[in-house]
């Protein structure tokens, strides 16, 4: 198994592991924004840069997707690596000035504000990491959102910027967004969930017993589609939230027990 030396600390990892995985095993923290355990890394944010020592020649690489193939020597805390990470964070702070999550991460990195003005008129507070898009495409399987355009005017949006017919309002994009730009808004009056800013709305199914909100109708449809049961039957099974369902199940077991005693 190849050995990875990170800032002097040595760990052994499986071949084709990434430097980031090795660092985590060694207990060394490297900032990473567009990194997510379920989605393969594309290294778009560039925050996880480290300095690789190739026996004389040093090179900055992104640790989230650099494959370890043999013994590897890495420096996370070298001046060059720190400077690069700081520079990237400063650019991100200029891009998304309102994100609290980003400011927190910057603070943890020791980056205090940015010398750069916000120069883009385009989608602010989106760092274009692409996590929302990829979770929608690869994990949920809907491809309701995606990139439009290219360069600094690129944005994350829906086809033709209209409410997407493919969106099931599951909220996975909101969960995975590292800067808090995508939000799930609940509309009490209409019983709908809205994914902002994508203009997707869907009716929320509620527990018939306690009234708690469960999932959106399209999500339920999707699940039903996969398990292939008659919708009405499915709806009957899904009319209770997990807690109420447990309660009801416990009650019926108790009833059977009582009957037996009689």
């Amino acid at each position: 198994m190849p050995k990875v030396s990170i800032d002097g600390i040595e760990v052994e990892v499986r071949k084709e592991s990434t430097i980031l995985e090795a660092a985590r095993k060694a207990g060394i923290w490297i900032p990473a924004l567009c990194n997510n355990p379920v989605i393969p890394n594309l290294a778009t944010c560039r925050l996880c840069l480290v300095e690789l020592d190739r026996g004389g020649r040093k090179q900055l690489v992104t640790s989230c997707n650099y494959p370890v193939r043999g013994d590897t020597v890495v420096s996370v805390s070298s001046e060059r690596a720190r400077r690069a990470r700081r520079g990237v964070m400063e650019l991100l702070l200029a891009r998304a000035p309102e994100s609290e999550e980003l400011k927190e991460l910057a603070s943890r990195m020791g980056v205090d504000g940015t010398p750069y003005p916000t120069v883009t008129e385009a989608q602010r507070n989106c760092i274009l990491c692409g996590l929302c898009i990829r979770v929608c495409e690869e994990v949920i399987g809907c491809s309701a959102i995606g990139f439009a355009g290219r360069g600094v005017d690129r944005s994350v949006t829906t086809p033709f910027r209209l409410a997407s017919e493919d969106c099931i309002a599951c909220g996975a994009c909101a969960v995975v967004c590292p800067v808090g730009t995508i939000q799930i808004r609940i509309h009490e009056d209409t019983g709908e969930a809205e994914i902002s800013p994508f203009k997707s709305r869907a009716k929320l199914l509620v527990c018939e017993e306690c009234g708690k909100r469960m999932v959106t109708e399209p999500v339920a449809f999707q699940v039903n589609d996969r398990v292939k049961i008659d919708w009405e039957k499915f709806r009957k099974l899904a009319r209770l939230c997990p807690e109420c369902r447990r309660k009801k199940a416990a009650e019926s077991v108790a009833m059977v027990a009582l009957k037996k005693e009689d």
Partner: protein
Amino acid sequence: MKEGIIKEIVNRYNNDDGMLIPMLQDIQAEYGYLPPEQLRVLSKTLDIPLMRIYSISTFYASFRHAPKGQHDITLCMGTVCYLKGSKQISDMICEEYNIEPGNTTSDRLFTLNAVNCVGACAVAPVMIVDRKYYGNMTPESALEIIHKLNLTIEAGDAGKSQKSQ
């Protein structure tokens, strides 16, 4: 509306979604632009998400989502043309016709495109009108050529963009 054109184009490339860009190029050649409705049909025919098609059609600069003018004017903004004044030519045309590069005049006479280098740098600044190259342009000579363009009003000549609507 041309029926079955999308199916024909998809068949042309053996239903291979890896050939999405040539398919879009063929659709644009047919309609003069990419009609949103046709992209929806393409999405269903190929069984790929509409979002994927939209991402591609907005990434590559050659694709249009709105009908173009009867004449196509392309100004080269490559380094040499720029050094020799292509920006002034562009500004002059935009001012006279009240448009921005990439747009079409309100009477649909022409669409003005700005591209980065058409490879005729020796005769910069270059203007291409309906695929014909004009070299050593000045704002005056460029406008002179454009003033000579005619708007053909007859139904048959109204251009493909009309037919597609």
